[in-house]
């Protein structure tokens, strides 16, 4: 069966012309940051980096949820896994992320009950099947994932399931854009905004950020033509000196976003301050359960506090996540740190910048 609209957006002829267009309009040197792991992978896979004019540098920002999860949070996951009464349910990406002294994969090898799931509802089913145990789902992800976790918590409450919990390490994108733009050492001339975070929060979700900072912003889809369109709109904005908040992915992103998902998010969660790897604490950038849903909060129930923990020695993930360094500038890249034996999360996650460089960037 044809994949709706995908072939059209992968049409090499169309991409070639869009690249020509970018070459024609781009004059000034610009640094554009993508804030989405799926963009990072798609940009590498399609080879877009190498065919852009020299004037355009693409930086990967804090767009990989696993990568921005703080070291202290990884340690908290491991502490939870060591509780004999707990079955830990997690997305697969987190398994190999090194904590301070262990990883979930090592804990599993040591006999802890850790299970990889594809959807939050798998965790609920697990709780039903194991009434004598507590099932803890590790909530890691941005605005795209958080509503799916909210839906699971909402359903667990409706079904009176008392042994399902969530450890919420969710992160919100607009506060991170604020924090990045405020950091003096981060120089970004335009943001390629994430497609599927935007499906949920809509164009409107970025308006307060844009109004304060007036940095060029374009919501961008994932096919090569989508990405090239996003880049070309950013370059247009920069060259004409008129920053705008624009949507280059209207088939998936509406002005107001997915309101049903937003309502569920607001019912179940409230914003809290959260610590991001590489950036530090950002006000209002995390989510915790509110009201009656606090009963499902694993941090509350098991009294787990994420402590400050040092990042892996020599790992430059923090600087890579803020566009300060590229993976080849990390001395451990390809030598001590590979996808088979990752030192930091940016090499673990398939959406991580180091992993993308390793897979798709041979010449460096």
């Amino acid at each position, binding site marked *: 069966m044809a994949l709706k609209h995908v072939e059209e957006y992968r049409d090499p002829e169309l991409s070639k012309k869009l690249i020509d*267009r970018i070459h024609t309009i781009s004059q000034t040197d610009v640094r554009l940051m993508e804030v989405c792991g799926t963009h990072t992978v798609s940009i590498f896979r399609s080879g877009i980096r190498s065919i852009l004019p020299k004037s355009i540098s693409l930086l990967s920002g804090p767009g990989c949820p696993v990568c921005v999860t703080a070291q202290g949070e990884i340690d908290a996951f491991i502490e939870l896994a060591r509780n004999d009464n707990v079955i830990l349910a997690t997305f697969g990406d987190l398994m190999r992320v090194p904590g301070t002294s262990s990883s979930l994969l090592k804990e599993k090898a040591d006999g802890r009950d850790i299970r990889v799931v594809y959807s939050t509802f798998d965790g609920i089913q697990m709780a039903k099947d194991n009434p004598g145990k507590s099932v803890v789902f590790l909530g890691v992800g941005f605005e795209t994932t958080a509503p*799916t976790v909210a839906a699971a918590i909402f359903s667990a409450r409706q079904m009176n399931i008392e042994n399902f919990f969530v450890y919420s390490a969710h992160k919100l994108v607009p506060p991170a854009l604020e924090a990045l733009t405020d950091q003096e050492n981060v120089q970004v001339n335009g943001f390629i905004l994430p497609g599927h975070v935007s499906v949920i929060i809509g164009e409107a979700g970025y308006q307060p950020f844009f109004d304060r900072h007036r940095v060029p912003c374009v919501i961008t889809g994932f096919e090569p033509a989508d990405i090239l369109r996003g880049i070309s709109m950013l370059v247009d904005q920069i060259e004409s000196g008129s920053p705008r908040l624009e949507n280059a992915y209207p088939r*998936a992103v509406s002005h107001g976003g997915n309101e049903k998902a937003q309502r*569920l998010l607001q019912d179940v969660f409230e914003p809290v301050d959260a610590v991001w790897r590489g950036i530090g604490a950002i006000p209002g950038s995390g989510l915790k359960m509110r009201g009656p849903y606090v009963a499902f909060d694993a941090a509350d129930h098991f009294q787990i506090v994420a402590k400050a923990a040092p990042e892996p020695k020599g790992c430059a993930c923090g600087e890579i996540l803020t566009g300060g360094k590229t993976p080849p500038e990390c001395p451990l890249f390809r030598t001590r740190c590979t996808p088979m034996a990752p030192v930091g999360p940016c090499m673990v996650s398939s*959406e991580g910048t180091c992993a993308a460089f390793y897979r798709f960037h041979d010449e460096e």
Partner: protein
Amino acid sequence: MCLAIPSKIIRIDDLTATIDVDGVRREASLMLLEDVQVDDWVIVHAGFAIHKIDEKSAKETLDFLREAAELVDRLERDGR
């Protein structure tokens, strides 16, 4: 974690849809979406349908891109 490719809904049972992802059948929750029907194309994330593809703007985007591409052709012809 994102499935960027749209999937087609082939059956709906209450809040669960059966979707077709390039020939493979999977289930997706409809808890996060309003007004969906069989034959709609949706974006699925972590087992949940999160958006119904807007046909009209999908077509408009393509038209826009093709137009932009033609503009480049014209500029090239004009010796720029």
